[in-house]
């Protein structure tokens, strides 16, 4: 039955201070409403239990995305559309932009807010697993002041949070790092568009060669809250990606989730899918460590035939961009360091010539010089670079793709050794 509108009260304080004072004057009485994409659905259905609503939609103090070298701070009212359009979030926190793209259609993305997704506290929300693996922090404000807490642990039970009734989420802080993370996420729902998840996994992994240096895994829809999976994370740390590790990780993950049977799925199905998406994450990470194209790694993790030559140019370019330049010292990349080992003996003159060659190559072709470096000296790679500068762009990109394929094959061998 529809709501009886006069039963409700809606006010819009002119600024954050008056909003917080209103909330402090009657703790728990006022429910904040931002874009309305959750609360208005309940309202229309006559199921909105809060009768005094405080519109915070126009509080500019809660808007904006601030970028510093240490972190990105996202205002509470930042919409999914704004998250999707932010270049640094796309690059450094791709699981969050992916989650934003899954949330409803364009109209919902224009109105739905990141803090609303958090405060609504649904275990099936799309963005919380991503926020958990990125170690997000929440800044909560009230008339009495502000405090910053880790997002991990914020949800204390089904639809329950650590927030006091007089508090609002003001900002979400994402710490930046120059870690070499592999970012993976999978949402399993009834259909592709506008579906609420049955299982949603977000994970990042950093490798040291073929072993896990650090792994973070978060899951939605398989417990009363979204959860990090510390037992599985600990199990994986220091292990290499092989069948034994996959079996062990699947056993561990099912021991730390408590899925239920509800209208969207059954507990058994969710348990099985949870184990399967963890396996997919591990396989995907292995493939992505061998070749930086996500679409290639997606297909390989799904057990498809090697799709390398059927991919689009942009996929090849994505793979090329994941390499350090030849002759430049790789940062946080043990695999590339090993591959470029034989360049160690090169003279400063050769290194300078390589740097200059790389610059000219990039100017001509628009991507970095890709060569399978294993076993090649600096001189050899310089000579090849100089030859390849004469190629036309159409042939050169295929040569670069062939070199990438050689690199991929050598890396895959290391994993199966």
């Amino acid at each position, binding site marked *: 039955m529809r709501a009886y509108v006069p039963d409700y009260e809606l006010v*819009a304080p002119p600024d954050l201070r008056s909003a917080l004072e209103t909330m402090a004057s009657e703790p728990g009485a006022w429910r904040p409403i931002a874009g309305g994409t959750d609360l208005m*659905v309940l309202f229309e259905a006559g199921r909105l239990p809060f009768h005094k609503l405080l519109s915070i939609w126009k509080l500019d103090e809660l808007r904006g995305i601030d970028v510093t070298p240490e972190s990105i701070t996202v205002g509470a009212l930042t919409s999914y559309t704004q998250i999707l359009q932010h270049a640094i979030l796309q690059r450094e926190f791709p699981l969050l932009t992916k989650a934003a793209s899954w949330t409803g259609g364009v109209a919902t993305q224009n*109105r739905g807010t990141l803090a609303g997704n958090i405060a609504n506290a649904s275990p099936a929300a799309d963005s919380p697993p991503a926020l958990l693996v990125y170690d997000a922090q929440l800044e909560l404000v009230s008339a009495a002041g502000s405090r910053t807490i880790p997002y991990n642990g914020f949800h204390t039970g089904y639809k329950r949070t650590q927030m006091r009734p007089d508090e609002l989420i003001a900002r979400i802080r994402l710490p930046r790092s120059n870690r070499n993370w592999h970012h993976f996420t999978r949402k399993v729902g009834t259909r592709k568009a506008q579906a609420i998840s049955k299982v949603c996994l977000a994970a990042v992994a950093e490798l040291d060669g073929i072993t896990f240096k650090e792994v973070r895994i978060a899951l939605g829809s398989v417990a009363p809250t979204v959860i990090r999976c510390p037992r599985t994370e600990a199990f994986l740390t220091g292990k290499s990606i092989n069948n034994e590790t996959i079996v062990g990780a699947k056993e561990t993950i099912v021991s730390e989730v408590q899925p239920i049977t509800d209208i969207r799925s059954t507990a058994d199905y969710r348990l099985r899918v949870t184990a399967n998406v963890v396996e997919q994450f591990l396989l995907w990470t292995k493939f992505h460590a061998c070749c930086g194209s996500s679409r290639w790694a997606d297909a390989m993790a799904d057990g498809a035939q090697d799709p390398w030559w059927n991919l689009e140019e942009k996929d090849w370019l994505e793979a090329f961009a994941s390499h350090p330049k030849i002759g430049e010292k790789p940062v946080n990349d043990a695999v590339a360091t090993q591959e470029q080992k034989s360049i160690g003996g090169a003279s400063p003159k050769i290194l300078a010539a390589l740097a200059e060659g790389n610059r000219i190559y990039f100017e001509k072709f628009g991507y970095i010089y890709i060569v399978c470096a294993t076993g090649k000296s600096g001189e050899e790679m310089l000579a090849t670079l100089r030859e390849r500068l004469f190629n036309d762009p159409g042939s050169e990109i295929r040569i670069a793709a062939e070199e990438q394929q050689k690199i991929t094959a050598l890396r895959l061998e290391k994993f199966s050794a």
Partner: protein
Amino acid sequence: MPDAITFTVNGTQRTINDHPMSRLLDVLRETLSLTGTKEGCGEGECGACSVLIDGELVNSCLVPLLQVDGAHVTTIEGVSAYKIQKAFLDEGGAQCGICTPGMIMATVHLLKRNPNPDEQQIRDGLAGNLCRCTGYTRIFEAVREAIKPR
């Protein structure tokens, strides 16, 4: 009685005395008699009630009146989208018609941001608008037709 709420609809300023929690959809259809905007699901899933608020596509069933105080609202009655509308007619992109105003609004919003969307961008742009008649193929065809240079 709460304070009156003033906003601009299709270029004309209106002052409304409805309850602040009234859905924008109901105010448009019932108070302002702008019945081009349709109600489908009433829960933000179907996009039939799509309008623009300050140029942004929204579902008007999920917007309380108070939140448009001072805003510019554009409904299907207020857009000049002849080319898009003709393409929907010519390509059979409209059948029963309930989703059509929302589809047109979503297309207007998409093309304003991206005058030449590819297939995937068209599908993403209209992903929040459901149609139970056409199977979507003819709707996407209509959008492709509308962006053809002539």
